[in-house]
């Protein structure tokens, strides 16, 4: 008898479980509006949090349709990998062109000429690489050369997984070439010393920021300009300072519509307008406010004071991403050589 009661209770429980599951499935499918998935890199969380409502408003005014936008953030290399593995991104907004190139090279998800489809190499905003130091700059860090000194502890992500980290690395590399009459041996030596000073190599830019700020590791954080100012805003200008070096790299984080996915989802119109609208005056204002360098001339002039002028090398001057990737970040590339030596 006792068992029967127990068994009945079990049946009741199973019924309840099934009902709840059913309800959840219904509520999930009830939202039939079109949704767009933007797969992005780490530090753009705040930017797209502000841009998405603006775009939803714009699209509603233009077409009367209410769309929903979903976000996914992570290290750029990891995110590109996920899209290759089937994460159905309608658009990608990643840290560097190389990662988007892989979507053509490995799976033909986008056309080969994707980077010429939108203005300015498909980069609606640019940025550069700067330093964040603790208040008062106790180690007197002014330029790249100071990062190679003994006793300076550097925080930067791993170039193998993070797009931002590759920009950091290439900025340091170009600086070393410039100051050593383009001697690659000297540049290797310089980079080797710099990475020997690295306290941790996180997988993404945001992880490095957390290491530097919340775990209080390191004397200097090498990071995106926008991420550097975010640190000041979030954690107090009374605790940190941004140091802009004499020389850095012009980082162009590009955007692209994933043709194969939008065709399948029927999202072509929203996806292309979502990226095109990033170049509008309204969006460029948000971009500047989030400390990305706007590409619109008027907005750039308006926020001129916010962005110090410094000499910037471009990735094209370094021979493009394919060459840079092969030479520096592929297995047994320069990074592996200097990092193994450092150990």
């Amino acid at each position, binding site marked *: 008898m006792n068992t029967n009661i127990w068994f009945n209770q079990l049946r009741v429980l199973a019924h309840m479980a099934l009902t709840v599951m059913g309800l*959840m499935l219904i509520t999930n499918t009830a939202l039939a509006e079109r949704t767009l998935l933007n797969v992005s890199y780490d530090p753009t969380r705040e930017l797209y949090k502000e841009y998405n409502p603006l775009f939803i408003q714009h699209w509603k005014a233009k077409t009367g349709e209410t769309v929903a936008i979903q976000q996914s953030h992570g290290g750029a290399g990891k995110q590109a990998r996920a899209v290759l*593995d089937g994460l159905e991104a309608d658009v990608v907004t990643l840290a560097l062109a190389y990662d988007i190139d892989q979507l053509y090279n490995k799976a033909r998800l986008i056309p080969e000429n994707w980077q010429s489809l939108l203005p300015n190499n498909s980069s609606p905003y640019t940025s550069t690489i700067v330093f964040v130091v603790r208040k008062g700059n106790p180690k007197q860090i002014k330029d790249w050369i100071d990062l190679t000194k003994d006793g300076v502890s550097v925080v930067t992500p791993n170039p193998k997984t993070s797009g931002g980290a590759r920009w950091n690395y290439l900025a340091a590399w170009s600086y070393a070439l410039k100051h050593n009459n383009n001697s690659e041996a000297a540049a290797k030596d310089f980079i080797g010393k710099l990475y020997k000073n690295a306290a941790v190599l996180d997988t993404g830019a945001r992880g490095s920021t957390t290491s530097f700020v919340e775990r209080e590791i390191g004397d200097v954080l090498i990071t995106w300009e926008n991420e550097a100012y975010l640190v000041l805003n979030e954690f107090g200008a009374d605790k940190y300072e941004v140091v802009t070096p004499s020389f850095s790299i012009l980082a162009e984080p590009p955007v692209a519509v994933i043709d194969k996915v939008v065709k399948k989802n029927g999202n072509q119109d929203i996806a292309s307008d979502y990226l095109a609208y990033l170049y509008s005056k309204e969006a460029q204002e948000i971009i500047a406010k989030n400390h990305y360098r706007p590409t619109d001339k008027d907005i750039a002039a308006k926020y001129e004071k916010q962005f110090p002028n410094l000499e910037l090398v471009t990735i094209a001057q370094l021979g493009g991403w394919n060459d840079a990737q092969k030479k520096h970040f592929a297995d047994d590339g320069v990074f592996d050589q200097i990092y193994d030596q450092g150990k």
Partner: protein
Amino acid sequence: MSAVIQTKNNTKQQAALHDPTWVRTGLIAIALGFIVLFLCLPLGLVLFEAFSKGWTAYWSALTQPDTQAALKLTLLTALVTVPLNTVFGIAAAWAITRFEFKGKSLLTTLIDLPFSVSPVISGVIFVLLFGAQGVFGEWLMAHDVKIIFATPGIILATLFVTFPFVARQLIPLMQEMGNEEEEAALSLGASGWKTFFQITLPNIKWALLYGVLLCNARAMGEFGAVSVVSGHIRGMTNTLPLHVEVSYNDYDVVGAFAGASILAGLAIVTLVLKSLLEWKQSDR
């Protein structure tokens, strides 16, 4: 003389049976210190941070749509995986303890596999199988079936990681019990199902509930395997543990720790239920 030796021996015996007080207090202090340092302190910190901006901030962090979606997904995952693994666990324990067959020890080892494999690998296995570049990727794409970076993938990964829990609890118990009672029932004419529900199930129910409880705790708390197959789409494929990480990286401390407080609460409920079950079991 002899009396003196007698008492000496007595105290020696007592000394052997009872450690000196400093050893006892020392051991207790170490054990308590460890618990406070590595259990109470972090748990307290979770709650402290969750409420650091007051009740209203805590509440609004929990009622935010992304948190709600993460909570729903976590519950759905547990609701699917726990019953499936319960059925599987009973079947596996039954097969292993009641029948003799070739490859039995292999099956026992295989059941333990998810325990010995890193959860990240468990996740990657599913990406390699069902991802767009994977073995079944093309077929799935052609038929518009989404597994990876969607709810089915998360459920599959959780299923894989949690499947030993129930079987692991039942196998030793059922081995110890033997099958005399069941044989008696069968020989008296009871059907197979009747024997199971009236003899076996009552005998194993506490161990079974215990296994289900552990399975549920892991299903709701799993991070590594789920992280690989999730795709981290906010409000869609983030489970509660993933949502905690995302909020933390958004510098949303209250949100992160509010999510963590739910997971910690779940852990405490599991612990209380577990002690209740153990008490019931020993009572029997």
